[in-house]
Each structure stands twice: as C-alpha cells, then as structure tokens.
C-alpha cells in the first residue's frame, strides 16, 4: 500500500508537464512519466527496464555508458546536478532539442538519477529564425553599403568628366557664346559641382558604415587645431569669432571626429542672419561615462519642430540659394557620434542661436 505522501508524489510525476525519468546506476530506466511518453513516443512499458541510451541519438548513444562509468569512477559531472541542452531521440528515430536536468539520489546503497526533460524545440526554432534573420539583415546591409559605395564612386567619375569638359567649354568657347549661353553653362556647372559635393557626402556616409578604420587614443585639441585650419577661409571671410575650451583625450577614429567638428562648426558659421558675424563657443563637460561637447552659435536658430528631422538625410530647412549644402552633413555627424558610442541633439530657438550637443564615451584607453 502506498502512503498518502507516495500517492501525492506519483500524482506529481504523472501530471508534470515536463518529462520525468528515473534511472539506476547502470542507466536502466525505472520510471518514465506520461510527459516522457508524449515527448519520446514510447509507452512506459516499452522502455522501463531498457537502457536510457535508447532515448539518445548517436554519438551520445554510444558514449553514455562510458560517461556513467567515468562519473562513478571519478565523480566528473557533465550533466548531473548541472543541467544542459541535449538532443533526445524519439521512437520514430527523429530527434528534438531538450533541456535536461539530472538530480542524484542514493537508496539502499544504490545510486539513482532523476532526469527532468523540457522540450525546447520551439525556443530553438525561434532562436534559429532570429539568427537567420540577423544573418540576412547583415548581408543585405553589407550589400546595400557596397552598392552605394560603388554607385557613388562611379557617379563621381562621370561627374568629374562633366565638370572638366564644361569648364573647358566655358573657358575656350565662353567668349563665343552670348550672355544667356554663358549663363546656361554656368548654371549647369554649378549643378554639377553641387552634385559632386552630394556624391562625395554620400560616399563618405556609406563608407562610415563599411570600412573599419583603425581606432586609437587621440588628443581632441590637436584635431580641433586641424579643424580650425581647414575652416580658415570660411572663418576669415565671415569674420567668425571662435572660443574653444581645452578638449580631452578621446578614443576612436580622429579623422571622423575632425569631420564631426568640421560639419558642426561649418554649419554654425554658415547659418547666421545676413550682416551678422558668427560667434562660436565650443565647450566640454563631464557627463558620467561620457564627455558632453556643446557647439554654441549666434545663428538663425531652429524651430523645435525640426529638432529630430535635421539629422535625417536630405532634410533641408532652407533654399539652396539662401544657405548652400547637401543635406547630409548632420546625418554624417549622427553616424559618427554613434560610432563614438554617443548621441547628438540640438537645443535651439529661432532667432537666438543653437547649441549642438553631442556625447562621446570616455575611454580608459584615452586617459
């Protein structure tokens, strides 16, 4: 007769959603609950008394005996008391992934092992689908990046020809054209130059995602000096006043950092009301694990409506005649900042200037 506790225990085993299996020290199956029957397709009567190997596919099937005897001899555990993902073999020969946890007991001097089995087929399928999806996404991204790179490069080649020959046409035949003819030619040259800038920016944008330029510690102040040098003509012509904080050492790609500053400071100089001299201030602050840079200007400012939009490709808020540009400058900035593990945003009000803020992750390597 069973005691009440034993009865309850058998209810637990019989109704458990997960498979429960009991084997002896030699691997002979003693208990095979209904969940196991559903999982493996065997009835309890068919497997009780058989070696548990029958539930394992090759090569585990062949290795199980030596695993058990090795455990008895050395105590070395692979699953017992640990639990791991293994593969089960159904009666029809098909296999399925399962999570197996094994507990150990000793009864009347004999070792017994209780295995609980959880079918993880669905989880594995979902994982596999996710892996495939990421693989496809990566491949299609790479392909798109490569395509844009090649397309931009080839476009540039033809544009170079258009520019070269149109310039020659204007130089050598300009005097023979009337003023309207020269105007047409000048307009077409300007369009080609603009397209050249645009393609160069596109090329740079796609390169940001594809090439793995070497990252290293660098002095942001030294990069700032180079930026000021490259903007020299613009600064001189606009009469811009620029005030820069001492900048920290950073870790990353210095050329990209330079481009980031160039774009932001170039914009700050460019977007000022007519007859106003640009005043820029570049400050840097500690912000937890980040450095926060702020490029402040006295420019035309930006309506709150456009705070996010300006970082999207080809979003221009002004006519080309008013303020020139390709519409990719801030998109490039956003991508560069992301590469530095940071974020970029703008704080501004129309008529009162803008603060372009970006963060760069501090690095111990740069210290």
């Amino acid at each position, binding site marked *: 007769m069973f005691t009440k506790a034993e009865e309850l225990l058998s209810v637990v085993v019989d109704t458990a959603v997960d498979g429960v299996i009991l084997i002896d020290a030699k691997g002979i199956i003693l208990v095979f609950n209904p969940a196991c029957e559903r999982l493996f397709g065997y009835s309890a009567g068919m497997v009780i008394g058989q070696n548990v190997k029958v539930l394992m596919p090759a090569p585990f099937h062949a290795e199980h005996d030596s695993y058990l005897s090795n455990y008895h001899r050395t105590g070395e555990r692979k699953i017992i008391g640990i639990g791991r993902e293994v593969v089960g073999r159904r009666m029809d020969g098909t296999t399925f992934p399962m999570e197996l946890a094994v507990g150990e007991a000793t009864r009347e001097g004999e070792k017994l092992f209780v295995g609980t089995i959880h079918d993880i087929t669905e989880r594995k399928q979902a994982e596999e689908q996710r892996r495939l999806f990421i693989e496809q996404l990566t491949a299609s991204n790479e392909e798109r990046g490569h395509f844009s790179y090649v397309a931009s*490069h080839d476009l*540039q*080649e033809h544009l*170079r*020809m258009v*520019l*070269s*020959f149109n*310039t*020659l046409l204007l130089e050598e035949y300009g005097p023979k054209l009337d003023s309207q003819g020269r105007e047409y030619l000048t307009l077409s040259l300007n369009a080609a130059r603009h397209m*050249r800038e645009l393609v160069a920016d596109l090329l740079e944008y796609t390169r940001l995602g594809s090439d793995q330029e070497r990252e290293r510690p660098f002095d942001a102040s030294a990069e700032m000096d180079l930026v000021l040098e490259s903007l020299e003509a613009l600064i001189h012509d606009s009469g811009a006043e620029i005030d820069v904080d001492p900048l920290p050492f950073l870790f990353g790609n210095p050329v990209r950092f330079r481009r980031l500053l160039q774009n932001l400071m170039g914009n700050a100089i460019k977007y000022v009301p007519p007859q106003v001299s640009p005043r820029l201030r570049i400050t840097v602050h500690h912000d937890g694990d980040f450095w926060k840079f702020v490029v402040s200007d006295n420019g035309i400012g930006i309506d709150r409506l456009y705070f996010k939009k300006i970082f999207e490709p080809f979003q221009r808020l002004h006519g080309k005649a008013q303020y020139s540009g390709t519409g990719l400058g801030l998109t490039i900035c956003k991508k560069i900042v992301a590469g530095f593990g940071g974020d970029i945003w703008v704080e501004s009000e129309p008529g009162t200037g803008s603060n372009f803020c970006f963060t760069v992750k501090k690095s111990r390597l740069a210290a």
Partner: protein
Amino acid sequence: MTSQAGTASTINSEDWSCVFDDAMEVLVVEDDEADAFLIRKALRRNPHIARISHAHDGLEALDWLDKKLINPDVAIIDLHMPKKNGHSLLIELRCRPEWDFPTIVLTSSKAREDATRSRLRGANYFMTKPDTVDELDSMLTHAMRGM
C-alpha cells in the same frame, strides 16, 4: 588603338618643335580616352614638354619602351587599366634599371591602400584626378618641378 608588336607606325604621340633645351618627353599610360585628352590638354600648357606619347595600357607602354620607340623623362600612369594595370607596370619598370625615369600615378582612386601600393612599387607621386584641367596642370607642373 593598341599597337601591335613591331608596328612602330601605330605609336600615338605628339611631337612639336620646342625651343627649350630641357624639353621633356612624357609618357601617358591611360585607358580612358576622355581622361587622356584632359591630361594631354594640361601637359600642352607646359612649355617644357616637347613630346607626349599616349599608351592605352601597361603592355603597350612596355612594348614601346622595349622597342625604344619612346624615351620618356617622366611617365604618368593610371592604375585601373585592362591587360596590364598601373601597379604591375610599376613593378616591371622597377625591374629594368635603364628605365629609371620618375613616375606619377594619376588615378580616380582616393584609397589610401592604392597610394601605399603605388609608392611601394616605386611611384614618385600619387595623385587623384582633379575636376578641371587647370588643377591638373598645376598638380602635374608642381610634381615635375620637384623631380
């Protein structure tokens, strides 16, 4: 367009009377006709250049050199060309001590590895093709002045 072995008459070169003692002969190796036109145009602006020969690939250039049809003082070499590209032409030039004229790589590539590879193969200058003949003229003149 490409010269056949032994047919000296197909050589594509310009020779015009020149009053300068230091008159230079320039070899242009370029597969693109439009680019070759622009390079010649820029070179013609330089009064020190008396002769310009235009080969369409590395093989044609080597053939002319081998047969002593040309005797350049400087070569302007494109990188991406059929038959024999600029990089392998540079290697062949280095293997022949008698061809010790300086070389200028003029390519549409801005890739740093192309510049490095060109220099390792002995190119004296590496230039990316500019947008106008004016720029090309000043770049080439500057390079040749430094030789």
